[in-house]
C-alpha cells in the first residue's frame, strides 16, 4: 500500500507538480491573482473561464496585456497556454518575458519600449487554427531582443529578480484587421 501511494505521489508530482499556473481565469478576474494590466487598443472580457481578447489594428499592432512576475523560472522549460482561434484571420500573439539582468528589479526601456539594460525574450504565436489548442513554447525557442547579457538566466542570482514581467502583445494577421481569440491556462512547465 505504501509503495502504491509513493508511486502515485511521484506520478502526480511528475504530471502536475512542476507546472506553475499563472492564471486559469476561473476566478473571473482580470485585475487580481494575478493583476493583469492592459495597454492600447486591446479589449478584454472573461468569458466561460477564459480571457476573450479583441481589438482592431490600423497597422498590425493592437495592444497587449501584462503582469508582474519577479519569479525564478529556472526550473521550468516551457511557456504554455491554451488558445482558442477562429482560423487564419484570428491574429497573432507575441509572448514577451523580461529578464532582470542588472539586478535593480526594474526594466529600463528606450522610446520604443525596448529594454536597454535587460533581456527581452520573445516568441510569436500565429493563431491559424479553429477552436482550442494547447500551445507549448520551449524557452530555447525564445529570441533575445534586449540589451542585457543575452543569456537565458531567469534566476535570482546577482540580485536579479528573475523574470520580472510577462507581456502578451496582440497583433492582427493582416495590416488592417482584428484580433479574435481567447486564452486560458497560462502557465510555465
Amino acid at each position: 500500500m505504501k509503495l502504491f501511494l509513493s508511486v502515485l505521489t511521484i506520478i502526480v508530482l511528475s504530471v502536475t507538480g512542476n507546472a506553475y499556473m499563472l492564471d486559469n481565469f476561473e476566478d473571473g478576474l482580470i485585475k487580481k491573482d494575478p493583476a493583469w494590466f492592459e495597454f492600447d487598443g486591446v479589449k478584454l472580457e472573461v468569458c466561460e473561464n477564459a480571457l476573450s481578447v479583441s481589438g482592431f489594428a490600423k497597422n498590425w499592432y493592437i495592444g497587449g496585456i501584462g503582469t508582474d512576475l519577479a519569479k525564478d523560472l529556472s526550473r521550468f522549460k516551457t511557456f504554455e497556454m491554451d488558445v482558442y482561434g477562429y482560423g487564419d484571420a484570428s491574429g497573432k500573439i507575441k509572448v514577451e518575458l523580461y529578464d532582470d539582468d542588472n539586478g535593480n528589479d526594474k526594466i529600463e526601456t528606450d522610446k520604443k519600449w525596448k529594454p536597454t539594460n535587460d533581456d527581452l525574450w520573445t516568441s510569436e504565436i500565429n493563431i491559424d487554427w479553429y477552436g482550442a489548442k494547447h500551445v507549448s513554447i520551449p524557452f530555447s525557442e525564445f529570441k533575445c531582443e534586449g540589451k542585457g547579457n543575452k543569456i537565458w538566466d531567469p534566476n535570482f542570482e546577482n540580485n536579479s529578480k528573475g523574470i520580472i514581467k510577462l507581456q502578451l502583445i496582440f497583433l492582427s494577421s493582416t495590416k488592417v484587421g482584428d484580433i479574435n481569440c481567447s486564452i486560458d491556462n497560462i502557465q510555465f512547465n
Partner: protein
Amino acid sequence: MKRIIFAVIIGIFLTLPSWALKTDIPKDHWAYKSLNQAASFEITCPWFENAAKEATRLNIAEIFSKYIKYLDKSGLINPKPAAIDEEYADIPEDSPYLGSIKRVVSQYKIMQTSSGNEFNIDLNMPIGQFAISLSKILSLSKDLNIDRAELVRITKRQFMSNFPDSAYKRNNSIKRYEVVAALVKAVEYLKEKKQALKTEEIVAPSNLKDNISFGGMMGHIYEKSSSTSSLSMFGGKMAYEHPFAKDSAVEVAGLGCTYDLQSITPMFPAGVKTQTVKESMLDAQVSYKNAIPFYVGGGKLSSLVGVRSFWLANEAAKSSLLGLRGGLEYLTKIQEKLDGKIRLGVTAKILGEQGSSIIGEPSSVVDYELGLAYSILPDAFLSLNYAGDALVFSRSFVRYFNTLTLKSGWKI
C-alpha cells in the same frame, strides 16, 4: 388633382423596381441574384449601385446594422440590450451613421475599434476577418447550437463559397457584392435551420407518446369506366401510433363505411338498367414508419412499409384484397400549433378474392392524403384530412373513394 396623385403613384411603382435593380454588377454575375434577394431581406444600401467596389468598414457597419435589425424582426437572433452610450474619436455626434456603428460595436460587439476608440470608417476589411464578424452575428442565433470557431468555418464554406480561393490566400479586402451575397446566404441558412428545428419538434422526444385518434368521415365513390357511383358515403376512422424512438413508429389504422352503390348498365337494344346495392367497406393497415434523414423544404420525410387489407361486401357478393404497402409521408410545421401532412402510398396485391359482376377482383390500391392538425392542448389535437383511394380492379377499371375526415386525437 386626382390625376396628379394617380400619376405620382404610378410613377413611384414604376421607379421602385428599377431602383432595386440599379447596380454595376452584370446580370450574369454570380452575385447579381443575391443583390436582388437582399431587398427582400431589407438589407439594401444605396451603395449597391457601386457594388463592385471594396467595402469600407462604414459600408459593412451600415449593412450589418440593417441585417441585425432584420434578423431580430424575423425572430432569428436573440437581441442584445442597448449598450451604454459610447463615443468614437473619429465619428461626430451628429453623424447619420453613429447609430449603426453603436449597434455593431457597442451593442452586438460584431466590429471593433482601434486604440483611442477610433472606428476608422474608410478602411477596408480583409475577407477572413469578415468571416469572423459574420460568424459573430450567426452566434446570436436562437437556433444554432454550434461552436463559434465552427461557425467561422461554416461561414467560409457555405456563405463565401463563390469567392475565389486566391482572395482568401492573399486575404484581399472584401467587395461590397461579396458582403451582400454572404449575408443573403447566411439568412437562408438561418431560416432553414429554424424550420428544421420546428420540424424536429414534431418528432421531438417530448412528443414520443402513443397517439390515438378517432373521427367521422364522409365522401363519395366514383368510377370513370363503369358508370358506378355513390353520392354519399359515411363511416368512421381510427388510428393508433406507437413511436419506438425519435425516428420510427408503428401505425395501425382502420376504417369502416357504408354507402349505396348505384350502377347504370346500358341495355340492348335501348335503355339502361339501374341497379342499387348497399355496400360496406372495411379497410385496415399496419405500417412501420421510419424518418429519412434529410429535410425537404424544412419538413420531415418518412418512409412507410406495411400491409393493407381491403374488404368490400354487398348483398350479392364480396371481394377482398391483402397487399403489401409502401409509401411516403411528409410532415411539416406550418405554424406554432398547426402541422401539415402529405401521404402517398401504393398497395400491391398478395391475395385477392373474385367478386360478383359489380365487384371485380381488386389488384392494387393507390392512396393519397392531405391533412392539417391543430393542437388544441399540448396533448390533444383536431385534424381535418382529405384522403382518397384509387382501387384498381383486374377488369381494368378504377374506383375512387374520396373522403373528408374530421378526427380528434390524443397523446397518451
